[in-house]
């Protein structure tokens, strides 16, 4: 009996033709240990108990599923917002870091490394390391350190060491390379907390499982509100794809639910300044798994562009690459300009300032022909405080 599922990879970490563990031998012991132990540890009652307790009392879960009345009226439909922006630290990222710090402790690792782009995952990692009193080193591109000063300060205040990635393009992809190199050089005491559903097997599956609490809650919350567990659409933005994986997870095999993944088109999908991986990427290997990768004809990885640092990644998780490949997911692209406009629309219509990443998901609403009977869930993955500098610049241009 092998029912087709979009949720879990096969034993070697493949979702369709994407996934696997393309790692140098130096990483093999660490990755194999994770592969053989992550499911068993995650299913231990003591793990589940502490994970659930922390999600409730520390993160603030369940996050509300909020019926957005004015937004719904504007689109002539029914739109619910899954409020991940109300999580501690301001985004969904902490669901995963809580899970992974507990897992690291079960594995006996006392040194944590992480990569970060905009700094949200770095802050979420620094937070759980402070919570557990564990050493924390966050790799961040030199350029991103300049662009994201408030989050760098947050990580430092939380006790993390922020290390500049000075190789390559000095952004998220290079921070990820540096974190992987650190892991190679520290084979016994270190756990690498990857922030998205990327990396070698079992990371995509492990991170998706930690984030799946988003859709687990959405199902019962929607049932309470509408009488049905199943929406017609779930919409989420996708960089690497962790909030989308979490928002989709318990709907992946419910084929009546339309899954809408929204990528960053930057200045336009074909402008040369874009991060729309499914539109531009070709199959390749990046950061330990086979997936779609934005690259040159010679196979060199291209530095993408998005106004949102969290979507500014040249790859996409293998789970999502398979959703694209199989047609199970619908992939849309939203430009910097449209995302900015949506951020202001949502702020003024619902009194919620979304993260720039999330603003992409909102902008996709106008690309769908929503009906009056549709029940649409948008994953409001993070709040917009971190993007205030960009929003302020925009207001200056708009004369606000």
């Amino acid at each position: 009996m092998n029912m087709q599922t979009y949720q879990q990879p096969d034993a070697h970490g493949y979702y369709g033709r994407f996934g696997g563990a393309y790692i140098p031998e130096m990483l093999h012991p660490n990755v194999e240990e994770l592969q053989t132990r992550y499911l068993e540890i995650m299913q231990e009652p003591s793990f589940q108990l502490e994970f659930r307790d922390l999600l409730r009392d520390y993160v603030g879960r369940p996050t509300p599923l909020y019926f957005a009345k004015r937004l719904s009226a504007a689109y002539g439909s029914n739109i619910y917002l899954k409020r991940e922006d109300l999580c501690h630290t301001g985004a969904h990222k902490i669901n995963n870091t809580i899970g992974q710090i507990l897992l690291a402790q079960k594995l006996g690792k006392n040194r944590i490394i992480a990569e970060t782009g905009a700094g949200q995952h770095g802050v979420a990692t620094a937070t759980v390391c402070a919570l557990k009193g564990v050493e924390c080193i966050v790799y961040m591109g030199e350029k991103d350190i300049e662009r994201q000063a408030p989050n760098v300060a947050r990580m430092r205040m939380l006790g993390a060491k922020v290390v500049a990635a000075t190789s390559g393009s000095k952004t998220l992809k290079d921070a990820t390379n540096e974190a992987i190199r650190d892991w190679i050089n520290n084979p016994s005491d270190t756990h690498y907390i990857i922030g998205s559903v990327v990396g070698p097997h079992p990371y995509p599956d492990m991170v998706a499982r930690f984030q799946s609490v988003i859709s687990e809650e959405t199902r019962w919350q929607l049932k309470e509100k509408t009488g049905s567990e199943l929406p017609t659409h779930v919409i989420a933005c996708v960089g690497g794809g962790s909030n989308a994986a979490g928002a989709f997870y318990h709907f992946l095999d419910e084929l009546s639910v339309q899954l809408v993944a929204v990528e960053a088109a930057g200045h336009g999908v074909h402008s040369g300044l874009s991060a729309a991986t499914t539109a531009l990427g070709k199959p390749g290997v990046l950061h330990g798994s086979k997936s779609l990768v934005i690259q040159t004809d010679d196979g060199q990885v291209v530095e993408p562009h998005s106004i949102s640092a969290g979507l500014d990644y040249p790859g996409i998780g293998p789970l999502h690459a398979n959703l694209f490949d199989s047609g199970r997911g619908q992939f849309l692209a939203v430009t910097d300009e449209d995302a900015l406009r949506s951020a202001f629309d949502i702020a003024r219509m619902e009194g919620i300032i979304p993260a720039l990443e999330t603003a992409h998901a909102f902008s996709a609403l106008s690309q769908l022909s929503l009906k009056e009977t549709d029940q649409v869930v948008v994953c409001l993955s993070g709040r917009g405080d971190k993007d205030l500098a960009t929003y302020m610049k925009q207001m200056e241009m708009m004369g606000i």
Partner: protein
Amino acid sequence: MSRIQALFQQKHKRVLNVYCTAGYPELNSTLPVMESLQANGADLVELGIPYSDPLADGPVIQQSSAVALENGMTIATLFEQLDGFRNRITVPVILMGYMNPVLQYGFERFCADAARVGVDGLILPDLPEYEFETEYGSIIRKYGLDFIFLVTPETTEHRVKKLDGLSTGFLYAVSSSSTTGANKQMNSVQDYLQRLASYQLKNPVLVGFGIKDRESFDAACAHANGAIIGTAYIKALEGAKEVGTATKEFLSTIV
């Protein structure tokens, strides 16, 4: 018998493999560098294909990769440069690269072109053994190329034997769990190399990572068939006026 196997039949001790990055320091340095390595005592040449995201490499080789890419090096250009190189170079040549550029070039096309120009073997550190066994190994063998797996001090006996079984040519023993160019002490490596020697492996063993001078080369050769030098040689090429002179000077300190 492959050129690599023939080498090890003739020479069992102190086999010297030197790594260089294709297209470094200049786009057209590839062949002059290989020739000068052969002329000055290298028994094998490991030719690195530059990549934007070389995970297993430390800063020095990364930087040489970045320079080579800026110089315009691509796999297609590399095969053009290598076309006819067997008229000038007789030592075995191994291509070392990462999976992504090879997949873009086309894995089978890559193997076919490598074999056609006279390359002898491949090292692809991010090609895992599962994918090797299920998909890529048969293509590599079809073109008569040797394939070399890496093992580390943390690799279990069972796995070392498995990777030795899948490898042909030699087995690449990484001296410590690190990226290339890490400065770790060679004396702690002896136990590990003696352990490898006790496994009665089918392939010769070359030690790499951290071999930078005669002392570390001697230490590596004490319990293995030879060693691989990479980072230290790339450093020697950095800012060198003439690759021939730089190579001669560098290798005279080793062999």
